[in-house]
């Protein structure tokens, strides 16, 4: 009986792992976890992103630039996702890489008017995160550890991604 329980327990653990892995939507990878680099960025109005805005929450960090084609396609999906997920407890750091206020303002008025953009003026904050390319998205757990990363642009407002984000938020 003891042996059967052990086998069942191992099977349970194995199924947990495979369910988790199977739940990852396309293009989401689980890198070796690492502590999230510090974020020192301010929005277009010069208001800094405060730690208190995301501490203890899952944080969706997105780096983008107006000249990047996949960013243009992805930003509207992020805006829609954010309009739902902010009520559910997800935090967002939407960070432009090395562009000026005017460029960001005109881009967002078309592609994401509901998003508050932070500016990485010299691009150095972005590079600290060592993105694979632009756009780049990271998901940081409530303890400040980077757990997931997206490969390229993703349709964040589609059911698979919303479900994935909701599961993260519920687990916090």
């Amino acid at each position: 009986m003891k042996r059967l329980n052990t086998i069942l327990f191992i099977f349970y653990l194995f199924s947990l792992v495979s369910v988790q892995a199977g739940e990852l939507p396309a293009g989401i990878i689980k890198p070796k976890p690492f502590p999230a680099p510090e974020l020192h960025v301010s929005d277009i109005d010069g208001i800094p992103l405060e730690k208190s805005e995301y501490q203890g929450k899952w944080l969706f960090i997105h780096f983008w630039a107006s000249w990047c084609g996949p960013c243009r396609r992805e930003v509207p999906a992020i805006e829609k996702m954010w309009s739902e997920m902010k009520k559910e407890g997800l935090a967002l750091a939407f960070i432009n890489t090395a562009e000026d206020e005017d460029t960001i303002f005109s881009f967002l008025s078309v592609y994401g008017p509901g998003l508050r953009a932070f500016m990485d003026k010299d691009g150095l904050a972005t590079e600290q995160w060592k993105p694979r390319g632009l756009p780049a998205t990271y998901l940081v757990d409530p303890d400040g550890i980077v757990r997931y990363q997206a490969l390229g642009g993703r349709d964040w407002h589609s059911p698979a991604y919303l479900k994935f984000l909701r599961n993260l938020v519920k687990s916090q």
Partner: protein
Amino acid sequence: MKLKPLPPFLLLAQLLFSQAIADTRATFENEQIKVRVTTNAPQPISAFYEGRGFQKNMINVLKQQCFVSVFIRNKSDDFIWLDLSQWQFHHVDGKIKRLDRHYWKERWKQMNIPMAHQSTFRWTLLPEELDFYPKEKEGGNIILPRSGKPFNIMARFDTGKNRSGKPILVRFENITCKVDK
């Protein structure tokens, strides 16, 4: 239905046309990887960087180079490694030295280029090294000194999580750098 053979002048035209296309762009594809290279003329390169607000002296330097845009897609279910130190570029006079990130960092430093523009510029380059996850795709530019001579590219991609799989060797021949019309 029996197909009629093409008249000789059409055959010749078709051959010349294929050659012209192969000169400034080329694609390699097998079951593991797709690699596309396209060279760019100075005018669109200038237009892109002008649009990003780059200063004239920076654009003048960039206009003199040969920009090779590279697109890579990992079609396999395994890791594929991009490592530009394993790529070689040759033309009739021998090896071509790629102008890498280190070169540009020093050049921009000497020219006092703003950090923001240096950062944007870096983002347009192909990463020096990247482990392509299954199905991942990325692209960027490789910059060579513009010589006007056709060149060959030999690229090696390691495979497998620990880079211990059979490498993929890709060769592009007779590539020319596009010129303004």
